[in-house]
């Protein structure tokens, strides 16, 4: 691959987007430093650590934008600043609740951005990702399986989903990597099979049920997801994996009946889980009627709602609330910390940022040249978006609570790492159409689809660039 001269536009746009985020970070850090003096009358020491966090964040963000601009011309300029903004939001909020863990998250952020940028800038064409898909999948499954045997839980309260500690107090959550591996695997699988499936689809909607060849992979993935759920009690990840898979199948085939099949399987799986696990029943009853058991199973959700309400529209102010009254306020319930101190405006801001991230990722998917790139980009965007919706939905009682974290914002090294790797992959894909002649040309196959595809004019004008 030849080295190109850096294209200034992504850097300029990136810096322009980072500027308000940087201002927010600095102001937030100052607020956190000053707040102890407000809460306590009499003298209190000023703690300038949050400013250190903000400076670190800024350094990482600038370095990321710079390196990407130099090594990956033509990449999408919005993704990385968006991700960094969310991560910065998370940094401040985590430090607010548990200062030591705020620094750990900062350390993880550095690692995550480094690896993410490496993935983006030095992963030509992503062919390596495709070829090694079985390796990713098997390693992901093996690592996750290891947690059954030697799994630990650093906080000691819940499911043992982590592997650690490598002697330095580092814990990894294999399930996060499994998500990435599965997305890669499924995208590659579907990209290959899609052509075959399409060639057989010329009759239209005559078959009432999907053929076994189409349905089998869905069933196999469903079984794997259910196996994870059953073994690990990690409902959220199971639902997430299955949802992303169904979405990818739907995107690849365009057949709504795949959605229906997925829905039926989800309901069936849900019934099995409901009858088999007390945890599922408890979560469901806490969701349907939390008011009748406020100090028992529904304690978390009620405290979460109270925290949101306590924030009102404008928030109590950074450092002036009591976010720690909600259990897991640094991870699963980081949104209630934001809701209490930044108010409804803060919550909506986080949602808007995530929605923009998802929209941007899907746009990258649309503009990608090869089927694998398209599906991978869509799958990664869906992964992040679904996970966000899952945890925020659980927090506002739109859905039962599941133990997933808010991407980029919650405390969680493995999650942050995986999310930035996903960003890296998306950035790599986004620079692809301008790269030119690599990879299989799937455009012909795509044009043969039902007439709902985009007008050919748009495609050809981009290809001509």
């Amino acid at each position, binding site marked *: 691959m030849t080295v190109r001269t850096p294209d200034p536009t992504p850097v300029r746009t990136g810096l322009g987007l980072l500027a308000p985020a940087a201002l927010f970070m600095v102001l937030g850090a100052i607020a956190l430093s000053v707040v102890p003096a407000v*809460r*306590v*009358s*009499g*003298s209190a020491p000023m703690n300038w650590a949050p400013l250190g966090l903000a400076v670190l964040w800024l350094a990482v963000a600038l370095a990321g934008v710079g390196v990407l601009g130099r090594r990956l011309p033509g990449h999408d300029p919005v993704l990385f600043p968006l991700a960094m903004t969310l991560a910065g939001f998370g940094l401040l909020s985590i430090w607010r609740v548990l200062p030591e863990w705020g620094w750990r998250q900062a350390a993880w952020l550095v690692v995550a951005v480094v690896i993410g940028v490496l993935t983006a800038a030095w992963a030509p064409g992503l062919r390596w990702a495709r070829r090694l898909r079985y390796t990713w999948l098997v390693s992901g499954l093996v690592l996750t399986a290891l947690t059954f045997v030697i799994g630990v839980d650093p906080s000691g309260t819940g499911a043992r989903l982590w592997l650690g500690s490598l002697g330095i107090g580092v814990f990894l959550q294999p399930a996060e990597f499994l998500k990435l591996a599965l997305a890669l695997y499924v995208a590659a699988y579907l990209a290959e099979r899609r052509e075959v499936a399409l060639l057989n689809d010329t009759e239209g909607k005559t078959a009432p049920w999907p053929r076994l060849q189409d349905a089998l992979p869905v069933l196999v993935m469903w079984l794997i997801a259910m196996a994870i759920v059953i073994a690990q009690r990690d409902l959220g990840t199971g639902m997430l994996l299955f949802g992303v898979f169904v*979405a990818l199948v*739907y*995107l*690849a*085939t*365009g057949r709504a009946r795949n959605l229906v099949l997925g829905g039926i399987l989800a309901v069936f799986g849900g019934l099995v889980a409901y009858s088999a696990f007390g945890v599922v029943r408890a979560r469901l009853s806490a969701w349907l009627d939390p008011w009748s058991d*406020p*100090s028992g199973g529904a304690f978390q959700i*009620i*405290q979460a*709602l*109270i925290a*949101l*309400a*306590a*924030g*009102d*529209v*404008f928030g*109590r*102010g950074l450092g*002036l*609330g*009591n976010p720690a*009254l909600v259990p897991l306020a640094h991870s699963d319930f980081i949104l209630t910390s934001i*809701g209490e101190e930044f*108010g*409804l405006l803060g*919550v*909506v801001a986080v*949602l808007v940022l*995530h*929605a923009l991230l*998802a*929209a941007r990722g*899907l746009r990258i*998917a*649309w503009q990608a040249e090869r089927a694998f790139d*398209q*599906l991978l980009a*869509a799958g990664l965007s*869906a992964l992040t*978006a679904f996970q966000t*919706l899952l945890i*925020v*939905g659980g927090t*506002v*009682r*739109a859905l039962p609570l599941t133990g997933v974290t808010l991407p980029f914002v919650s405390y969680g090294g493995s999650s942050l790492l995986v999310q930035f790797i996903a960003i890296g992959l998306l950035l790599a894909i986004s620079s692809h159409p301008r790269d030119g002649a690599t990879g299989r040309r799937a455009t012909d196959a*795509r044009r043969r*689809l*039902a007439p*709902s*595809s*985009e007008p050919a004019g748009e495609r050809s004008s981009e290809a001509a660039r």
Partner: protein
Amino acid sequence: MNAGAWRVLNLALALAFATVAAMSGYWVIVRGAELTGRPDNARRALLETRFPRGEIFDRNGAALAESVPTLEAADGYVRRYPYAPLGPVLGYVSPLYGRAGVESAQDAVLHGDRAETPAMALRRAVLGDPPTPGAIRLTLDLDVQRQADEALGVRAGAVVILDLERGELLALASHPTFDANSLDSTWSTLTTDPQAPLLNRATAAGYQPGGALFPALYAFALQLDLIAPDATAPRGASALTLDTLTVTCRTAPTLGALTWDAALRFGCPSPFADLAEEIGPARLDQLYNDLQLLTPLNLGVPSVASAGVTYDSLSALGAGQGSLTITPLQLARITAGFGRAGRLPATRLIDAIRNPDGGWVPASDSGVESTAFTPAVAEALRPLFVDGYVATAQVGGRDKRRTAAWFAALTDELAVVVVLDDASAGDVATVGRTLLDALSLR
């Protein structure tokens, strides 16, 4: 990738994010006040450790509850109750244990939610200022309260003292009490104590009335011309047998045949049981409604009323051992009615509220006056209460039967009711008369 599916996914995600944002808005804007006002919202109580909560005063301005700066931390306030025996009435407010009593019922005022101008409320919402608390002045008189608590001593029971003219509560005593100043160290014993010190017996405990309602029944029957004071009461002094209970006269009469007047004075249950049968369920229900025994009073503090009264066994109701229970407060109002020409007073505990701007306004939480008896009948029965009308009631299940004893008295200005959980008629008479003597010396 299929274009149609891509569009569907985009749309679905947009809808999902919008829905979730809307639901956040719902909880914050629509249900916000309700959620933050919940007792398991520790934030309110925690805030009050940093900013003072409003005070509670007695009618003369003595502090009954106040937030004082703590000695330990550089900042912070702690709630102090100078007169500990009022624990069950005043209640407590704590981030751990929730709220109770007056502290709970008037939490909006004491925390500072009420009487805010919209400008103040907006400023507070944007800047996150602490609220400016209001204060409460009760009608209780600390001197009278002390006498009531002294009279009860170590016995379990309650005292209610009511001012006849304005219906104001001068004393509410409930023993055993607890010290709200030391909740942290005593909470576990308080909640497991079988004597229930956290219960406010004066307003929130229902007792079997036994003979305490005989005067009311008597007055009602007089008005209906069903009895006459000199007429012979059928079954006179004979014991009354209900399902598993045998009730006898409170004081054994010396005569064989009794007049109605004598039956009332000796507290004999059989005639009143028959009287209830004669009155019938419809009129009995009307009497209970006139006496306001079936609905809780609007006092500004929690009070209870007998729920689920059935009229299957009118004899039991007549003897005061049926499905109707009364609180000492309710009996005090009935007794007061006899001293007010048959009109039960509009009872008040909250006298006035101080707004955040410093001005006191009269409280609007007030019961409703109701007429139960004609002036003539009330006047005729008033002498009964001069030295106190004593009555007993059987309480408890078959295995742990005990006697509760009532004492109801009228002075020129006050209605005084004493109930003891487990005592004889003689005990309560002693307590009651000692109290009356102490009160007359004021």
